[in-house]
């Protein structure tokens, strides 16, 4: 089912060596399997004997917990036990596979390693004495979480379900939305120890196949012992590591993933995590929320513009505050300056230190809020809000204006729909604050210039990060910046989708008057 592509450089590879075939002797095979699996107690070997097939020595082997035992009983054990083996041993295996065992997929294995991997994938193995070939029937299953509401990317209006940890379920969810024959899935097994299934989904006539090929090669080149989350893949295959900006998006929403697919992006699903990756992306993709598509276009446009603003605020506000109050006091209206000056009276620290102190405090609070056990939540909010906010002001350690600036910055940061982009602005903020404290607005501008140059140079699977603005792509820039009415959204967003750039004809509905 899944091709095993482990062909990294000649590193340490414990289970390597020449592929050895299974033995024809059932006893030898059983011993070999038990030894390879280290005599684990969840490894089950059951002999299959019945009056219907006298003289046939057959065992079924599987690992408990990762198989669906009901399925084994009904689809494998029952039919095999009731089977009367025809004479003429030679066709037994074929007959068993094709006529007797009623699981969805079966395959024939003849190598030791293959057999072990089949067991570890949750298949059950039927070994017959006298045959080198074993049958692996797909009975994988076991306990898993059911499809639930999304936790991190919630919408008010729109589908209310999210991916789960099971890749097969996730692919199913995605396929159920995009019921097209152009839906393509490529699967890879990545990770020497975890042998995690990674699925690459794209649309045949929309996604640029050169990019698909490139991504495929990058995934296959990954050499790691374990993949536990999609970020492992993201860091391996993204174009650049040393950048604060993410060059891939992630989503836990099947509908969002479907949107990306239709825009010509690829979706990478990783077994064991509900977060799917999407790429290629541009900077502006990170400010699109799933809900933009489900709300009226006017409010969506407003909210999207608000998000750009909030992103700038969360990146720039503290540094601008520092720069203006310590270098460019002439920029402020007199009453505001006097109000700020009166708040600063008696504050022992320079504005830069004050801001850094508060920002770091907030980062600590935020991290604590994420890490702490749920039960101690109220304690943190009391300490955070009362002790640190109010008391710090009353004690004269920080000025109230700074508390407002830091709070607003923090809240603005949560507006960005993609956490990875929000984190980028968090990191950049500190650098800009230092620059502002040293050089004022000149420093901020220098930093921003540096950022813009850097961003213009970024690529996500070959797509310029600042597209469709640098380089200019006139067809999509309005749709990228604001949300057009659906009938006007003619072009697919991503620059790579040159294969099939038009989404629809793009006519205004006939019944609507000018």
């Amino acid at each position, binding site marked *: 089912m899944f091709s095993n592509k482990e062909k990294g450089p000649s590193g340490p590879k414990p289970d390597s060596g020449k592929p050895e075939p299974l033995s024809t002797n059932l006893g030898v095979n059983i011993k070999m399997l038990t030894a390879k699996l280290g005599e684990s107690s969840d490894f089950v070997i059951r002999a299959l004997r019945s009056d219907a097939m006298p003289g046939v020595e057959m065992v079924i082997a599987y690992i408990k917990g990762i198989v669906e035992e009901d399925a084994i009983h009904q689809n494998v054990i029952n039919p095999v036990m009731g089977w009367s083996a025809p004479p003429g041993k030679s066709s037994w295996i074929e007959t068993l596979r094709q006529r007797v065992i009623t699981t969805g997929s079966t395959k024939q294995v003849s190598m030791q390693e293959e057999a072990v991997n089949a067991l570890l994938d949750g298949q059950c193995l039927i070994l017959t004495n006298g045959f080198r070939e074993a049958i692996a029937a797909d009975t994988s299953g076991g306990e898993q979480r059911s499809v639930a509401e999304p936790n991190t990317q919630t919408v008010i209006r729109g589908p209310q379900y999210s991916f789960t940890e099971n890749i097969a379920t996730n692919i199913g969810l995605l396929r159920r939305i995009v019921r097209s024959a152009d839906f393509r899935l490529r699967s890879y097994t990545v990770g020497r120890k975890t042998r995690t299934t990674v699925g690459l989904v794209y649309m045949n006539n929309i996604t640029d196949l050169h990019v698909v090929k490139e991504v495929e090669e990058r995934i296959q080149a990954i050499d790691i012992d374990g993949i536990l989350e999609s970020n492992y893949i993201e860091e391996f295959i993204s174009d650049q590591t040393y950048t604060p900006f993410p060059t891939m998006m992630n989503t836990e929403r099947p509908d969002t993933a479907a949107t990306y697919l239709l825009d010509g992006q690829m979706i990478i699903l990783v077994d064991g995590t509900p977060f799917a990756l999407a790429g290629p992306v541009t900077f502006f993709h990170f400010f699109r929320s799933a809900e933009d598509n489900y709300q009226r276009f006017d409010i969506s446009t407003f909210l999207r513009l608000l998000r750009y603003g909030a992103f700038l605020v969360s990146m720039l506000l503290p540094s601008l505050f520092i720069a203006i*109050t*310590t270098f460019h006091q002439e920029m402020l209206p*007199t009453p505001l*300056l006097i109000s700020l000056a009166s708040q600063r009276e*008696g504050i022992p620290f320079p504005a830069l230190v004050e801001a850094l102190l508060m920002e770091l405090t907030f980062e600590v609070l935020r991290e604590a809020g994420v890490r702490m056990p749920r039960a101690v939540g109220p304690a943190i909010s009391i300490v955070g809000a009362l002790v640190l906010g109010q008391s710090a002001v009353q004690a004269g350690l920080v000025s109230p204006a700074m508390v407002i600036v830091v709070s607003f910055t923090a809240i603005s940061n949560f507006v960005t729909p993609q956490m990875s982009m929000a984190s980028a602005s968090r990191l950049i903020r500190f650098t800009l604050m230092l*620059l502002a404290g*040293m050089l004022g607005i000149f420093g901020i501008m220098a930093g921003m210039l540096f950022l813009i140059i850097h961003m213009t140079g970024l690529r996500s699977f070959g797509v310029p990060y600042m597209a469709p603005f640098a380089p200019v792509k006139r067809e999509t820039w309005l749709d990228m910046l604001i949300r057009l009415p659906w009938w006007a959204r003619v072009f697919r967003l991503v620059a790579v989708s040159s294969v099939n750039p038009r989404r629809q004809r793009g006519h205004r509905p006939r019944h609507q008057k000018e």
Partner: protein
Amino acid sequence: MRCGGNRLACCAMLVVLMSAIITGCSGRTELNEISIVSASGIDWKDGKWIVSYQLVLPQAISSHGMGGGASGAAPINVFSTSGDSIRGAISKSSYEMSRRLYFSQNQIVVVSERAAKHGLTSLFDAYLRNPDSRETVNIFLTKHSARDILEHLIPLEEIPGAAIARMIVNEENNGSTLPNMTVYRALLELLGPTKSSGIPSLEISGTDPLDSTQKTAKTYSSSKIKLAELGLLQDDKMVGWLTRDQSYGVMWVRGQIKQSTVWFTCDDNHPGEKAVMKVHHMKTKRKAVKDGDNWKLDVRIKARGTLLEYPCEADLSKPASIAALERRAADKIALMANSGFKAVQEQKADIIGLGVAVRLQYPRQWDAIMKRWNEQIFPEAKIDTKVDVVIERTGMSTDSFRKMQKKAGGS
């Protein structure tokens, strides 16, 4: 991170480090290291410049909710330094100040009459030369010492400097008697063809200046700061004063009326009863006309307004009576404009703009007469004022109160 592995990251680190080392945060000034000057005053006494500063005390101003604070303290503090030059005097402020004086938020500069008569070259030069002295500062003259004006509190307001700046803006928008002069506009006029400018002045009315917050505890103020007359500057020196009425006429001729109220007699039989019109739109066209050796200023004023008061008895529903009313208003405006023109002529400082018009229309002749303009030619010039007034609305009633009463009595 392996350096060299990524040039970008290294560059970023280098930039941050370099800016930290090179600048050393030295250009930084925290807000509690500056003292904000809200108004400054220039005096000239015994051959020295005396510069006064009105410093804002932020704690005293926004002590609301800041845990007590010094309530009852004056929101400002005034002190002076003297020296041979203006900037020299300012630099002496460090003898007595713990903080750097911060002039960028300065709202007004008050120049005493004596200093203005001495000449303001060094003040204007300081404004043109230094980036922290903003030319958008309002400039005022005063017959008192400049320091007295700065020491005076203004009821309702926390920062007197800012309040005076708003006072002249308010006057410009609602009365238009005196021009709102910033240093920039004064410089523009003084560097223009006629080298004259008019600058409003401030006066303290009352004998007991309001210089302590204790005095503001009462329901009335013992004294007030008021906008007074218009001081005329010629070259860099003050040459004389125009009264408020004269200044108002000049404003009509210069077309600087934004909104104003004009009153005029509406019935010759009752000269004491005035109709009042609010002018909310006006336009002036000025043209210089050569009249032999003399020059004539052709002024065409168009004004539109609303009737605010009408005590007379004409039937305002008839267009003819409105037209008559408009004529009376026009006559009044022309009268004021002419008297303003005459007053300026007497002071020999052409702030009217006749010289500017001559220069634009007759550039060759201007070169010849430029030198003699203010002294000889301008005082001989004539004015021809034609005013066209449109009363657009008569307010919410047509008949005057008196007429209505008569009607009621008759029925």
